[in-house]
């Protein structure tokens, strides 16, 4: 059985970010890229599924520019993925949105994986688009917001929970399937040091951008008009008080007179 697990590099949340000089997009220079949080859960779940069905191959796949995509694939190998494929993005393409789905689907179409597994959304753009767009392009069933993902011993069908605002649905679906994962069965593991070392020496297969060019043909990547950082937080105001009553009264006064959120 085979799992294709999709991994995306996302900017480290604690790093400093800035727009490009023309203000059109996030400047990738100086950003430290890490494995997007939901994708990290997807890798964890893929490895858990492999533990339950020995012999399964977990194959990590990423679309994007070097070197960040290759680094993220090595992070996947260090966690325990068996193989890695880097799908090179054409120059100027930022790996996001429907373009990513088109490029990845072009590669996945030829791969007989029972499961295409990825995070339900990425850690940065948070479109939540990939699982369903990929499923549509591949002509396979697709689900987002999935947890408790299991498969039967033969890998013929998958069972899982799909979370909804008003509850949860239980599903059993025949393979092959595309799953956007909300949560793995356990917290994502951290890489063991010997595995980190081993991952540096393992091959990362490269699919040249020309290979997926046809899939992107007629869909030139277009940057947004402008990129801006979130407004800085104004900081907390502390209320000094001698008694709880005084604290409540002072808070009410501020909510009425300064914040004007109460009549």
């Amino acid at each position, binding site marked *: 059985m085979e799992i294709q697990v999709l991994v995306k590099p996302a900017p480290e949340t604690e790093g400093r970010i800035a727009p490009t000089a023309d203000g059109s997009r996030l400047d990738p220079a100086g950003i430290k890229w890490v494995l997007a949080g939901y994708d990290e859960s997807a890798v964890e779940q893929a490895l858990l599924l492999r533990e339950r069905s020995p012999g399964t191959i977990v194959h990590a796949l990423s679309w994007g520019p070097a070197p960040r995509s290759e*680094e993220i694939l*090595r992070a996947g190998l*260090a966690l325990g993925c068996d193989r890695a494929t880097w799908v090179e993005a054409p120059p100027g393409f930022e790996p996001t949105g429907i373009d990513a789905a088109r490029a990845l689907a072009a590669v996945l179409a030829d791969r007989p994986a029972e499961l295409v597994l990825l995070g339900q959304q990425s850690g940065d753009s948070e479109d939540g688009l990939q699982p369903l767009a990929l499923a549509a392009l591949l002509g396979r069933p697709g689900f987002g917001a999935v947890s408790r993902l299991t498969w039967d011993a033969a890998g013929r069908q998958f069972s899982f929970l799909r979370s909804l605002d008003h509850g949860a649905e239980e599903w059993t679906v025949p393979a092959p399937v595309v799953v956007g994962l909300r949560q793995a069965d356990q917290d994502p593991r*951290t*890489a*063991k*040091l*010997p595995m*980190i*070392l081993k*991952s*540096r020496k393992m091959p990362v297969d490269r699919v040249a951008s020309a290979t997926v060019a046809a899939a992107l043909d007629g869909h030139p990547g277009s940057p947004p008009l402008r990129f801006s950082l979130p407004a800085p937080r104004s*900081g907390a105001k502390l209320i000094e008080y001698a008694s709880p009553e005084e604290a409540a009264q002072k808070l009410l006064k501020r909510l009425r007179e300064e914040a004007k959120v109460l009549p």
Partner: protein
Amino acid sequence: MGIDFSFTPEQEALRDGIRKFLENEVAPVVAAMDESEEFPEATVRKMQQQGYFGLPVPEAYGGLGLGKVGYAILLEELGRVDASHGAIVGAHTSLGTTPILYYGTEEQKRRWLVPAARGEKLLAFSLTEPGSGSDSGALRTAAVPRGDGFVLTGSKLYVTNGREADTVVLLAATDPKLGPNGGVSAFLVDRGTPGFRVGRCEKKMGLHGTSTAELVLEGVELGPEHLLGGVGQGFSIAMTALDVGRVSLGAASLGGLEAALGQSLAFARERTQFGRPISEYEAIQFKLAEMAMHAQALRLLVYAAAAHQDRMGIDPTRWDRADRARKTREAATVKCLASEWASEAIDEALQIHGGLGYIRGTPIERAYRDARISEIFEGTNEIQRLVVARDLLTRGP
């Protein structure tokens, strides 16, 4: 090849992996560990399983083969998160594995080094005695020949990992008249050996996660396979291990300094007084700048010393005299400056944090207590200055 100060992609990946592990697994338990003063068994176990206890040991002996530079990266990262975990790894690796790796027979390496580097066994190192600290030649614990082995009697003090260690690299006097010049030998003493027991464990100002134990030896009989190196070679074995330890201790202090700087910078940006963030006041800026300058200088010192040790290799019989002296002086310099600059930075960080820094359980308060010992153990800073001065007066500047 000129001077290249960059790390390899492998070393960068190693640092990232270590940092992530320590942030996820170790950082969350540190405050409770400090409060309970208990050995962090669960995190140590996990670190043992994930390769953290044999970093510089060659792969042939169960380690990761990452040398002293890789090992310094580990200690720097440990120093950022928790000095106790750093001391546990350091006592085991620098002081425990180094003597066996450098001076052990092939059989001793198989028996003691491989399981230690694989994380299956924990090591400690024991030199200090009630009457012998900086004057490490004045050991009273006696190793008297009997048959083809030895009988050890005496007591040792302040042994990091002493309570938990499976094996202790222990220094004893085989000829008290000779002192450090051939009168001291190194032994591998296993837990459970008849006559060997753990005595009192000290309560300390800091490093609450580590045990600091007294070891009692009452007629401990050891076979010849427990003697490390030759009879009388103990002092030189200990000094070689301490050269490794002092650089890694410097790396840990550097990590502590960097953490103090990071926390101070974040706090100074957030904390507003008189209508402005305190980072806008020169008094605070100068403190931050001083810390950053020391951190930059230390990074160069630590990794230059570690890289030099890597170039020298692990076979002491191949070292030339001048190179060995340089290594010792570098290690003393790194240890002394790093520990003092770290203490200074953490003191300033506490000042920047104001009253908050004095509150029990905050990272700065813990770091303040943890850092002080680095000016004392693995050779007091007075001894480090003596080492540098002696080398100055014999070899020159």
